[in-house]
């Protein structure tokens, strides 16, 4: 059984963010990076399934981005993934979720994965689109926001978090894709020997150029808050006059007095 987990490297959320030069993203200089939190749940769940299935399964971890994402890839390898695909893209932040999904699909289509895990969303962009778009493009059955997962005999049982604290259960036949939510599991710490051994696992590096055919569908516009108009009215005059003016304003502009 071929398993894939897709991960993104995001800035440490404790960072101080500054807008970048083009004003469409944050400045990436001087940030500390780590694996997207939701992807850690995805990796943990995928590794547990890999352990459940034993040698009959192989778990690949995939990440798109510049060289720095190799650190996140190595963490997933240290947690228990077998091999990795690094799709090299220094300009990953300029791509919209549709393009990111298309890149994953371009790789995954020929690999014929049986089950794909992704995070529910990324902590920085938060679109929650990539997983479902991959499933849609590959024609996989799909369940989102998993807080429970089990697998037996070709069937995934997914406990999903719905709106308003309600949970739902979905059963999916393979091939399938699931997106993972907080509460699904507690990700393991990678052990130090495994961090060192991950060095020896294969990381296939693929340039993004050969994999991206789709144009962006998201429209990026840039706007600024309108210039601040006068900041309030100063009322003058005798107390009686002032009270009348205040009552007039409250009646006219607010719902307090009718």
């Amino acid at each position, binding site marked *: 059984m071929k398993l894939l987990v897709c991960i993104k490297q995001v800035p440490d959320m404790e960072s101080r963010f500054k807008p970048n030069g083009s004003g469409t993203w944050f400045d990436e200089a001087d940030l500390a990076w780590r694996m997207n939190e939701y992807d850690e749940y995805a990796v943990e769940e995928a590794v547990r399934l890999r352990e459940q299935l034993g040698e009959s399964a192989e778990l690949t971890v995939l990440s798109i981005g510049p060289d720095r994402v190799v*650190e996140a890839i*190595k963490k997933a390898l240290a947690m228990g993934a077998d091999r990795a695909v690094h799709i090299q893209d220094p300009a990953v932040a300029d791509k919209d979720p549709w393009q990111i999904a298309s890149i994953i699909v371009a790789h995954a289509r020929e690999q014929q994965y049986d089950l794909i895990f992704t995070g529910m969303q990324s902590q920085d962009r938060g679109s929650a689109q990539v997983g479902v778009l991959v499933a849609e493009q590959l024609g996989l059955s799909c369940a989102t926001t998993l807080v429970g997962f089990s697998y037996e005999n070709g069937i995934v049982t997914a406990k999903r978090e719905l709106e308003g604290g309600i949970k739902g259960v979905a059963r999916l036949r393979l091939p399938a894709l699931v997106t993972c939510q907080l509460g699904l599991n507690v990700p393991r710490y990678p052990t130090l*020997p495994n961090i060192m051994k991950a*060095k020896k696992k294969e990381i296939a590096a693929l340039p993004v150029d050969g994999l991206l055919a789709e144009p962006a569908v998201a429209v990026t516009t840039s706007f600024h808050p309108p210039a601040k108009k006068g900041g309030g009215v100063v009322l003058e005059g005798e107390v009686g006059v002032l009270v009348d003016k205040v009552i007039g304003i409250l009646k006219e502009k607010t719902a307090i007095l009718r």
Partner: protein
Amino acid sequence: MFLELTEEQKLIQETARDFAVNELEPVAAGLDQSDDRTPMLDNLRKLAELGFMGLNVSESYGGSEAGVIAFSVAMTEIARACASTAVTVSVNNMAAEVIQAIGTEEQKRAYIPRICSGEFTAASFCLTETCAGSDPSGMMTQAFDDGDSYVLDGTKLFITSAPYSGIYVVWAVTDKDAPKGKGISCFLVEAGTPGLIVGKEERKMGQHGSATNEVLFQSCRIPKSALMGKLNDGFRTAVAELAGGRIGIGSLGLGVGLAAMDFATRYTTERSQFGQKISSFQAIQWKIADRYTELEASRLLLMQAAWRKENGKSFAKEASMAKMYATESANRACYDAVQMLGGYGYTRDFPVERYARDARITSIYEGTNEIQRVIISREILRNFA
């Protein structure tokens, strides 16, 4: 010149930081104030499972083989949350390393994996005695050759982790007529050996989670195979291994200093007096500038010493410089952190008073900073003689 950690080192740092924040920090204040060490002993076991007890030990003995730089950054992260846990981890690593350095193959196979895996909660390094502190060559504990065994007699003092150690690395005099420092040998004594008695625990100023005890040897009989390294050559080993341990203690000091300054600095951006944040006062700003500069310099000295050790270069002088500078910077950082919090800094409602007490010992153990200066100046003067 390359000053960036490798990906593996960064991941180890991240793992140590995550573990420290999630598991160590929540119990650190409690460990400081109660006699119940259970939370620390539990965390030591988990740290062992993650591979933190043999960072610089070969994989074939159950170590992580991650190197000295990784050891240093891990120690700093652990100490940011809990200095007591950190010193235990440091001593365990030192014990595993000394066995790896001079033990026989049987000794390595018998003990290192049990330190690394956490089967032994801790390991102890027994050098100091009442009359032999800065000058350990003046030790009185003796090991008598009794045919097929040695018999240990004497008392060690200030032994970290003694009540929960599985294995004690013990130095004793084997030739009392030899010139000073030449007649000392090193032994491995298992916990539970008859005649090994863990004595009274010191009541200390800080690092309360970590036990510091007297260890008595009363006609303690150990097999001949317990000798580690060459007979009468043990003192040289002790000196060499302490140099490595100094990187650990310097890194520990750095962690405590950073914790204190990070807490205090954040506090000054929240506390107002005279109608403004106290961080707007230059007197506060200069403390921030001075202390962080020193901590950063400490980090670089530590990285240099660790890098030299990792790459097989001489590192004793650099380790002493790093230990001395980092632990003194840490003490200054803690002193100023208390000052920056004013009266609140002196109360137990805030962690900086604990940091200040925990940091205080770092300029004393693993060789006092006066002794570090003796070593540093001796190494330098040698080039001028």
